[in-house]
């Protein structure tokens, strides 16, 4: 959604023809379109792997996490929760809040599947929802062929899970300066997701600034600094997003995320 600036409207260059593409053709296009995502994911996941190791996960556990979750901010939050020994309620609530945008994307993709799409493919496409894969999947003209999303996801998750495992395994071989440098890559990625829309829309820009300010205030005020990071995210998100929704409800078109 937020990454529309870097995703071309017609990623494959192919679907504008009258004859529908066959399934193998879609798989081939998907693998090609997914390759840059794979590269980007590897680098970011490497940093995640270093963080996973610091929190105490083994390579196998981090592989399970990355393959099972496929979510940058989500896994980052998951590690934070594991580290702070969060309870089940806090885990589920934080996961829901941090990954709510996938709910939105899923709502949007549900309109992109033919109503005759078998249920098994609804289960399959659900796994293929990340910012980038969603961006490509929703940019396809007409109905979405699930195997296109599967192909992108296959190669992307290979990079994502592989990067995480490598981060755990060889992250500690890296010099401290490099590890120190990689520790900000996830935050850089978050900035890349929120800043371009904030630039285009002054209200979103103000909301982002206010959120950062509130987050800072929460972390320094004696009354709130004891609150765990997970609940801080939940509380601030619910309050600020609800306030924004009241102040400036989205228009029909703006909703197309």
């Amino acid at each position, binding site marked *: 959604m937020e990454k529309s600036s*870097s995703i071309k409207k017609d990623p494959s260059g192919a679907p504008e023809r009258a004859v529908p593409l066959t399934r193998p053709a879609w798989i081939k296009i998907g693998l090609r379109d997914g390759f840059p995502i794979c590269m980007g994911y590897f*680098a970011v996941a490497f940093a995640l792997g270093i963080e996973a190791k610091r929190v105490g996960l083994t390579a196998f*556990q981090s592989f*399970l*996490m990355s393959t*099972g979750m496929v979510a940058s*901010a*989500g896994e980052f*939050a*998951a590690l934070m929760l594991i580290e702070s020994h969060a*309870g*089940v309620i806090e*885990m589920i609530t934080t*996961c829901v*809040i941090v990954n*709510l*945008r*996938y709910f*939105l994307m*899923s*709502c949007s993709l*549900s309109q992109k*599947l033919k109503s005759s799409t078998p249920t098994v493919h*609804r*289960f399959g*496409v*659900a796994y293929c929802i990340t*910012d980038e894969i969603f961006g490509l999947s929703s940019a396809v003209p007409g109905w979405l062929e699930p195997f296109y999303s599967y192909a992108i996801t296959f190669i992307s998750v290979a990079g994502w899970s592989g990067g995480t495992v490598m981060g755990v395994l060889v992250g500690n071989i890296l010099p401290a300066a*490099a590890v*120190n*440098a*990689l*520790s*900000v*890559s996830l*935050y*850089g*990625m*978050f*900035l*890349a*997701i*929120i*800043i*371009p*829309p*904030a*630039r285009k829309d002054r209200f*979103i820009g103000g*909301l*982002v*600034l206010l959120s*950062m300010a509130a*987050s800072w205030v929460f972390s320094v005020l004696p009354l709130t600094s004891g609150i765990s990071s997970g609940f*801080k995210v939940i509380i*601030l*998100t619910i309050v600020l*997003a609800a306030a*924004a929704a009241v102040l400036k409800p*989205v228009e029909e078109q703006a909703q197309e995320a």
Partner: protein
Amino acid sequence: MNIYLSLLIMCGTVYLIRLLPLLFLRKPITNRFIRSFLFYVPYVTLAVMTFPAIVTATDNIWSGVAALAVGLLMAWFNGDLFVVAISCCATVFLTGLFL
């Protein structure tokens, strides 16, 4: 809590979030408040998670501040996810040589 159990709970939760709309939603959400709320959620969540955490993530606060500044600039003018992330890392690495 056991790490495997934690992972199972969280992976299951994240998958359900992605699955339920695809499975049950055959028409768009009509409630304007809910649609607006869902629309603003990612911005608030990611902003809260980024600041002030980015500043304290490195072993020197000023390299974190520099990474934030460079990240904001790169995201503003370039926007590419990979490029912004790498620029932040490079900033911390380079400032680390002098601080």
